[in-house]
C-alpha cells in the first residue's frame, strides 16, 4: 500500500489536499479530502448591517462572486419581506448577470483549469502506442489546450489556441457583466430590492453584441457544428436515445473522414467537445466508434455501485414569465432549472431545505453535531496541535463540514442540474453508461454536463437580453432598515459549481445575529460523516486507478492523473467551502428552522 497525496491540488480556487492509499494494482482504496484554510467569514458578518451581506459574501469567492451576491440578495429580499415585490426587470437583470457569470466560470473551468490535464505527458506516451493517429492527436491536443508556463522534458510549450482564446472570451464575459453591474470580480449591482442600475437601450445592444461574440467562440472552437444544430439535436432531442444517437453519428462521420488523413483540426470538423467525446471516453470512443484507444476519462471519478451519493440542486434563475416578485420559500419550483433531490438510483424527490444538516465529526470544529444550518453551533479548534491534516477516518482532517441531505452525501453542480432538468443528452449518456456497467456520474459525464449547461444557458441568455429586459421597466424597490427587525431570510441559488444556500437572522436592532452559508464545494468535497460515510469526491477517488488510462503503461504514483481528473471534474472552490462557520447567537427568540413545505 502506498500513500499518494496531492497537496495542493492546483488549478482550482483555494487550497485542497487529497490524501489517498493506492494498492499494488494501482487502485485507490482510501481517500481523504481536506480543506486547508479557516477564515471565519460568518463570524465576520455578525453584528453588521444585513444589507452589506450581498457585498461581503462575494468575497468568499472571486470566481463565483455573483452567485454569493444572488443567494445573499434572495436571503435579504426575504429578510426584509419584499421578495414578492422585486420588479420583473430587476429579476431579468439578475438572471443576465448570473447567466453571464455561469458561462464565464464554466469556460474558465473547462479551458484554464481542467483541460491542461489532458496534455499531461502521460497521454503523449499512451497515444504514441497507436502510431501516427496517436501522434497527430497529441499534437492537436497540445496545440489547443497547453497552459501557460508549460514545459515537457525541458522544452517550453506555447499556450494552446483554445486556452488563450478562452481567456479572451472569459474577459469579454466579465466586461458584459460590468456593463450592468459596474465591475467584475465582485459585482456591485445586485442588492436588496433589485439592482442598482437601469440598463438603457445602448447597454442592451452591447450585451447582445457580447453574446454573439461569445457564441462565435463556441462555434469556432468548442463545437465542430453550429451551436444551434447541436442544441436542436441534443437538448431539444425527442428522446435521450436520439440525443446520444446524434452525437455518436456525428462523431462517426468525423472519425470516418479523419482516421485516414489524421487531420483532427477544427476545420476538419473537430470541435473541442468532439475531440474529447471521441478520444476522451472509452464507451463512446472505443466501444461505440471502434477507435484504437481513448483516455478513458469515463473510468475515473465514478461511484461504486453500492454508493449512496445523491444529487442535489436548489434551482436557479428567476421565472420572469411570472412578472414581478418571487417566493424565496418556493424557489426552484418553477423556472427552467428546478430544485430537486435525486437519489443514487436517480429517483427524483421534492427538495425541502429542512433536510439539510451539517456534521463536524471529521472537521476541525467542536460543539453539537448534525444540525440544520440555522441552528449551527460550531467553534473552530484553537489548539494548534489538534490541527493535523494527515488524519484518517478516525480523526478530524478538514476545515470543511460534512453537509448531508436526509443523511445522504450529495454531488452538486452541472451534472446534478442537468439530471434535475432531465436534459436529454445527459440522461442518454447516463443510461448508456449504467447499461454498460459504468458509474452514471464520472469525470466524463460531469464535463459533458458542464459544456451542455453552458450552451443551454447561452440560449436562455439571448432571450433575457433581447426580449425580456425592458429598459423602461423598474429595477428596484426601496426598503428601510427597520423592516429587518427580528427577522430571518433564506436565499437559495446555484453557483456554477452547485447548490448554494444563505440563511440570515437579525435582532431587534436589525443587525445580523446569525449568517450561515452552505456552499457547493462543502457538499462535493465533504469529509466523512459520523457514520464514516465519505463525501462525494472521496467516494469518486476510491476505486479510480491512479495513473493514466487505467495504468495502461504501468503504475506511476508520481503522476496520479486519476486523482487530478476525478477531483477537478467537480470544479472545486475551496475558499467557498471553508468560508466557515458561525456560533449561533441564541437570542431566546425564533429558535426555529424555517417552516416551509
Amino acid at each position, binding site marked *: 500500500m502506498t500513500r499518494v*497525496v496531492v497537496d495542493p491540488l492546483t488549478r482550482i480556487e483555494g487550497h485542497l489536499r487529497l490524501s489517498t492509499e493506492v494498492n499494488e494494482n494501482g487502485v485507490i482504496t482510501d481517500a481523504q479530502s481536506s480543506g486547508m484554510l479557516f477564515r471565519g467569514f460568518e463570524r465576520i458578518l455578525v453584528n453588521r448591517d444585513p444589507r452589506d451581506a450581498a457585498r461581503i459574501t462575494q468575497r468568499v469567492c472571486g470566481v463565483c462572486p455573483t452567485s454569493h451576491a444572488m443567494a445573499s440578495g434572495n436571503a435579504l429580499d426575504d429578510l426584509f419581506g419584499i421578495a414578492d415585490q422585486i420588479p420583473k426587470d430587476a429579476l431579468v437583470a439578475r438572471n443576465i448577470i448570473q447567466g453571464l457569470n455561469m458561462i464565464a466560470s464554466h469556460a474558465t473551468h473547462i479551458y484554464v483549469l481542467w483541460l491542461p490535464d489532458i496534455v499531461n505527458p502521460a497521454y503523449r506516451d499512451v497515444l504514441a502506442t497507436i502510431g501516427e493517429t496517436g501522434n497527430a492527436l497529441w499534437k492537436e491536443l497540445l496545440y489547443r489546450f497547453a497552459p501557460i508556463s508549460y514545459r515537457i522534458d525541458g522544452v517550453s510549450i506555447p499556450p494552446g489556441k483554445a486556452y488563450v482564446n478562452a481567456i479572451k472570451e*472569459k*474577459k469579454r464575459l466579465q466586461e458584459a457583466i460590468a456593463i450592468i453591474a459596474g465591475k467584475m470580480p465582485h459585482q456591485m449591482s445586485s442588492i436588496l430590492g433589485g439592482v442598482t442600475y437601469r440598463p438603457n437601450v445602448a447597454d442592451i445592444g452591447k450585451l447582445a453584441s457580447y453574446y454573439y461574440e461569445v457564441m462565435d467562440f463556441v462555434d469556432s472552437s468548442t463545437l465542430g457544428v453550429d451551436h444551434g444544430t447541436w442544441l436542436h439535436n441534443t437538448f431539444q432531442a425527442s428522446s435521450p436515445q436520439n440525443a446520444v444517437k446524434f452525437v455518436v453519428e456525428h462523431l462517426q462521420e468525423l472519425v470516418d473522414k479523419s482516421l485516414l488523413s489524421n487531420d483532427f483540426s477544427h476545420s476538419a470538423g473537430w470541435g473541442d467537445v468532439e475531440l474529447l467525446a471521441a478520444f476522451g471516453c472509452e464507451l463512446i470512443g472505443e466501444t461505440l466508434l471502434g477507435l484504437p484507444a481513448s483516455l478513458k476519462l469515463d473510468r475515473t471519478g465514478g461511484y461504486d455501485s453500492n454508493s449512496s451519493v445523491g444529487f442535489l440542486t436548489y434551482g436557479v434563475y428567476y421565472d420572469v414569465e411570472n412578472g414581478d416578485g418571487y417566493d424565496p420559500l418556493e424557489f426552484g419550483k418553477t423556472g427552467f432549472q428546478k430544485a430537486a433531490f435525486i437519489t443514487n438510483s436517480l429517483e427524483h424527490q421534492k427538495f425541502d431545505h429542512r433536510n439539510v444538516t451539517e456534521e463536524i465529526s471529521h472537521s476541525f470544529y467542536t460543539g453539537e453535531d448534525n444540525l440544520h444550518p440555522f441552528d449551527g453551533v460550531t467553534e473552530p479548534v484553537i489548539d494548534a496541535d489538534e490541527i493535523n491534516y494527515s488524519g484518517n477516518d478516525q480523526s478530524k482532517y478538514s476545515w470543511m463540514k460534512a453537509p448531508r441531505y436526509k443523511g445522504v452525501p450529495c454531488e452538486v453542480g452541472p451534472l446534478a442540474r442537468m439530471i434535475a432538468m432531465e436534459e436529454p443528452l445527459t440522461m442518454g449518456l447516463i443510461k448508456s453508461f449504467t447499461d454498460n456497467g459504468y458509474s452514471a456520474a464520472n469525470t466524463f459525464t460531469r464535463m459533458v454536463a458542464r459544456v451542455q449547461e453552458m450552451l443551454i444557458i447561452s440560449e436562455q441568455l439571448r432571450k433575457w437580453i433581447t426580449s425580456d429586459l425592458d429598459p423602461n421597466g423598474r429595477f428596484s424597490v426601496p426598503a428601510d432598515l427597520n423592516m429587518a427587525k427580528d427577522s430571518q431570510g433564506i436565499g437559495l441559488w446555484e453557483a456554477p459549481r452547485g447548490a448554494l444556500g444563505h440563511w440570515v437572522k437579525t435582532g431587534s436592532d436589525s443587525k445580523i445575529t446569525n449568517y450561515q452559508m452552505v456552499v457547493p464545494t462543502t457538499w462535493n468535497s465533504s469529509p466523512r460523516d459520523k457514520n464514516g460515510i465519505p463525501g462525494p469526491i472521496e467516494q469518486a477517488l476510491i476505486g479510480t486507478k491512479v495513473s493514466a488510462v487505467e495504468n495502461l503503461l504501468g503504475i506511476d504514483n508520481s503522476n496520479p492523473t486519476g486523482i487530478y481528473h476525478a477531483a477537478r471534474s467537480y470544479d472545486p472552490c475551496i*475558499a467557498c467551502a471553508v468560508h466557515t462557520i458561525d456560533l449561533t447567537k441564541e437570542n431566546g427568540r425564533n429558535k426555529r428552522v424555517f417552516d416551509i413545505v
Partner: protein
Amino acid sequence: MTTIENTDFFSMDRRTFLKVVGAIGASAFLGVHHTDITKALEISKTKIIWIHGAECTGCSESLLDAGNPDIVQAIQKLNVDVVYHETLLAQQGIFVDGKPAGTSELNSEILLDEAIEEGDYILVVEGAVANGPNGTGKYCMYGERTFKEIFKKAASNATFIMAVGMCATYGGINAADSEIVDMTDFRGVAFQRVDPSKGMLTELGIEKPVINIAGCPAHPDWILLTLAAVILGKIQLNDLDSILDKYKRPLVFFPEDITLHENCPRRGYYDKGIFDTEFSGDACLWKLGCKGPYTHSDCALRRWNGSVNMCTQAGSPCISCCEPGFFDNGAPFYQEAEDKAIFSGLNMDNAAKIGIGAAAVGVAAHAARRILFDNNNEKEEEK
C-alpha cells in the same frame, strides 16, 4: 523634446528605450497606458512567483481580465516568466509516502522550492497570511507546511514584494472586525489594517521593499503597470517613499489629494445638489451611502473591465474597497457617511472646494463631514 506622448517605443532598441524611459519621470511612465507598456515588458525577462494565502482568487481572476497587455501577452510575448501561480500552472504538489515525488515539471512543490532557491524573482502575494492559532499559522496550510512558512521562505529570497488586493495588503475581509479576529490573526504583508507594526514581514523580522496594490479586487492595470515600472527600474526599490503613500500604495493610482468623487461620472449631479434616494436612478449616490469622497483611487478615470464601467456609474455607491481598513471603514455601505466613522488618509479640502454654482447645501454638509471624519480618522490611527 522627448515626451511620453510623442515617443515611439516600438522603433527603439533596448538601450535607446531604457534611455528614453529614463528621461521620463516614474509617475509619467506609470500614467501611460496600454501599448507603451507592452513594449516596456518586451525587453526584459523577469521571473514572478505568485503565492496564494487566505484569499478568494478574485485578484487572479482580475488579472485574467487585463487588457493591453493581457496576461497571455505578458507571459508569452513579453518575457514575463510566471514561474509559480497556483491557479494557472500545470503542476500540483505530489507526495508519495511522505516525500515529494517526481520533478519540477510535474510537482509544484519541487518547482516552488527550486525557484525560491534560484532567487532573482519578484514575489507577488495574493491573500492574507494566517498567524493563528497562537502564532502557528496553521489556519492556512498547503504542501505539508503553513502558508506562513511558505511566505517566510519566498519573501526572504525575493528582490521585492508586491502585495496584491486587500487581503495581502492590509488583511482585508480576514482582518475585519469580529469576535474571532484576534484568534485568527490574519496579517497583510506589511500591514494589519493600518498598522505597519503588525505586518507579517515585521513579525518575521524580514526587511524587503514592498508595494501595495490595494483594491478588492486589485485592478489589473494597477498590477501590470506597477510590475512594468519595477522591471524597467522606473521605480527605484531603494527609494519607494517618493512614489508611494504612507500605506505603500503607488500615488499615481491612489492619489493623496484626489478622490474618486472628483472624477465621478455622476459628479455633475452632486454639484447641482441632485441626489438619488432610491436605487437604479441617474443622480449622485451620496445619500445612498457612497464613499467616493473618501476613496483615493483612479477608478473613475481608469474604470473597470476594459474601461466599460465602474461602480458609481452603474448606480452602486462606492464602498471604498481600496482604503486600508476595508470592510469596516466603508461600512455600512448603504448608509450616508455622516452616520458612520470613516477612515484615514482622506483629504476633504478638494471636495469642499466645489466650483461656482455648487449647491451651498452640499458644501456645508461636506465641511461638517470633514471635521467628523478627521476626528474618527485619528481614532482609527491610534488603534
